[in-house]
């Protein structure tokens, strides 16, 4: 009985699927070396995936069920630079910015592991900066479209759902990025101030800060990027 009462104790953990099964059958934790914070972020992201999934599916149904023609993205999203219409140029840049911000984020996490206070903070600031740039460019694109007469209820080129779903989905994603930027700044400040080294308690939560906060922040940020790739594909390339 002693063996069966306290499961998975002193036993070497098998790997592969049987390892997973063993963990789920064990006590205390289903994901053995995943901290609470990380687990929570993962599950939140799963839920958020469903939100974006529903948004995109609704957009597709709208696009397929509406009777009017759908505006041609590569014309709508073209920029006129030096007299030549370059299709999708702005989006290309925006996407590039966001992807590279994922890069800096990854490096920040990496230095976080090494408990390198300054580098972590700086790289997070860089990430935040890139994120902010993305939001600004999005703001630019919104203004451009609005000046061209795109409205939630109509637009010059065809189906009204184009405008509404575009503003809704990019807006919702943009909000995610903005929130991300804000939290990046907060976390960066904490890292810089050394909260994570001394385990200083958060002002609101009263929890001790650790460098893991950086990694959790990273999870969120990469997710937001990934979602963008899908939005990009469905809005601009379809």
């Amino acid at each position, binding site marked *: 009985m002693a063996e069966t009462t306290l499961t998975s104790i002193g036993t070497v953990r098998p790997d592969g699927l049987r390892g997973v099964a063993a963990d789920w059958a064990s006590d205390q934790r289903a994901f053995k070396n995943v901290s609470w914070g990380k687990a929570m972020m993962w599950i939140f992201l799963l839920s958020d995936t469903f939100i974006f999934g529903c948004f995109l599916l609704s957009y597709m*149904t709208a696009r397929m069920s509406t009777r009017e023609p759908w505006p041609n993205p590569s014309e709508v999203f073209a920029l006129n630079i030096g007299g030549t219409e370059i299709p999708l140029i702005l989006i290309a840049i925006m996407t590039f910015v966001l992807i590279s911000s994922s890069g800096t984020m990854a490096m920040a996490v990496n230095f976080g592991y090494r408990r390198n206070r300054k580098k972590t903070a700086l790289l997070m600031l860089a990430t935040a900066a890139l994120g902010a740039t993305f939001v600004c460019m999005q703001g630019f694109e919104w203004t451009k479209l609005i000046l061209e007469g795109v409205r939630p209820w109509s637009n010059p080129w065809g189906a009204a759902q184009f405008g509404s779903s575009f503003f809704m989905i990019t807006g919702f994603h943009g909000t995610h990025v903005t929130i991300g930027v804000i939290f990046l700044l907060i976390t960066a400040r904490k890292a810089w101030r050394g909260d994570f080294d001394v385990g200083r308690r958060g002002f609101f*939560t009263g929890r001790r800060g650790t460098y893991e906060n950086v990694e959790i922040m990273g999870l969120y940020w990469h997710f937001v990027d990934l979602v963008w790739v899908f939005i990009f594909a469905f809005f601009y390339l379809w």
Partner: protein
Amino acid sequence: MVDVTHGAAIPPAEVAEVDLYHPHSWWTKYVFSQDAKVIAIQYACTALGIGLVALVLSWLMRIQLGFPDTFSFITPEAYYQFITMHGMIMVIYLLTALFLGGFGNYLIPLMVGARDMVFPYVNMLSYWVYLLAVLVLVSGFFAPGGPTGAGWTLYPPQAITGGTPGGADWGIIVMLVSLILFIIGFTMGGLNYVVTVLQARTRGMTLMRMPLTVWGIFTATVMALLAFPALFVACVMMLIDRTLGSSFFMPAIVEMGEQVPTNGGSPILFQHLFWFFGHPEVYIVALPAFGIVSDLISVHARKNIFGYRMMVWALVAIGALSFVVWAHHMYVSGMQPYFGFFFATTTLIIAVPTAIKVYNWVLTLWRGDIHLTIPMLFALAFIVTFVNGGLTGLFLGNVVVDVPLSDTMFVVAHFHMVMGIAPIMVIFGAIYHWYPKITGRMLDETLGRFHFWVSFLGAYLIFFPMHYLGLIGVPRRYAEIGDMHIFPASAHTLNAFISIMAFIVGFAQLVFLFNLIWSIRHGREAGGNPWRAASLEWQTPETPPGHGNFGKELPVVYRWAYDYNVPGAKEDFIPQNEPGSYGASREHR
């Protein structure tokens, strides 16, 4: 016997992350508390309070249906506002909040042997956002034009056009905002419940040793985290349609002779989004009830729950299946008719795992030692009403049978029996069961039995005859059936009878409410474990449990939560944290 101190191989019961924020002031102790137990009580009181409002609304509805046009203030507009608020409050702001926010917060940490939820601060926010959602919802009553009268299903275009109360005013906006807030608030709590169950159990507490209560709430929470997104999206889109005049759900229509500029939207899309949330939702309020009732029956029949494993897998199976049956609410919605075959099949398949649960509850009684305490009585009432309501669900699930019955009072009877009565019975049973742990005193027995008999028989008499109104063809959401000759005069008599019953049952709830308040001071001292139950929450050093639940040492778990009347044991129950190998046969560690 196990020597828990041997070897460094044993992970400490105390998990590294545990780091409680101990309250310093009265405010942080009772108001902005981060203690899951306090949050639970805040959730429960708010939910019951708003539930009372919904109950009063149901009386007003019944007055109109039973005795049409007796009160001039119950116009058709008002009637639709009443049913809408009644339905929405009952399903979301009462049941969902009470089961997950209330019972979830109180029981999960105690039952899995955790000191608190994993993120107490977020947990606290969850409550305050929920409270905000409730306040916004209530503000609808005072908004110009009153609350929305679109029915709790909020189908567009009707919900956002002038023909519906609140459709062209503030009503619908307020409702959508409140729902969005609720979802945000719930998500904060839900993440906590899930992570606590997965990552913060005490030593020896394997998933397959958790009480079914935790399993039920856990499964429901996971479902909620995946189902609410659909509602969230639907609400956002409808909000944009309503405020910015976009056309997600709005085709080209002519309203009251006026051409409306919307074009090309799809009302059916909303229905798919709503029901992709809506059907899981109805199981979200059912699964916690399934879990809790299993424990009530086991404890009060002094017998282990029959077929624990099957019970767990049935919960999971129901949870998974409920994501592929949503269109059974749309058989007559004008969607592609061939969907009917698929959804009818999946829908009826759900009857099988559900059936297993029913059988196991009943078989737990078999050769038990049944103490007919109030919780046990409510548990029995639950089984009766749930089986009844579930079986009428099979009528509706069988696509062609649904055609004549859909949108009639038969549907109303179905879902009240299965959702309006069954889980409510469990809530009552659970309150009588855990009240001693929460307050240290028992609820009054006599009042309790009165409350039980009136609620059970009364509610059954309200909703069982209602099926037959639906069978003659009385549609739902009719402010009055008026003078239609297909409906015999006796139908009106029946309506009157139903109404009177509703008032009686409602009155009994006030008695219950009184009992709740009175017993806090005057109830009989309960002691730590009045029901002689085995699960962890009854083994706390102090009652009510203090902040951190278990005092200095977290309990270590050696067995499942159902060791009752184990052969060879001296007591007729063995607490989960009692060492020793007797009882607890291997497959039920």
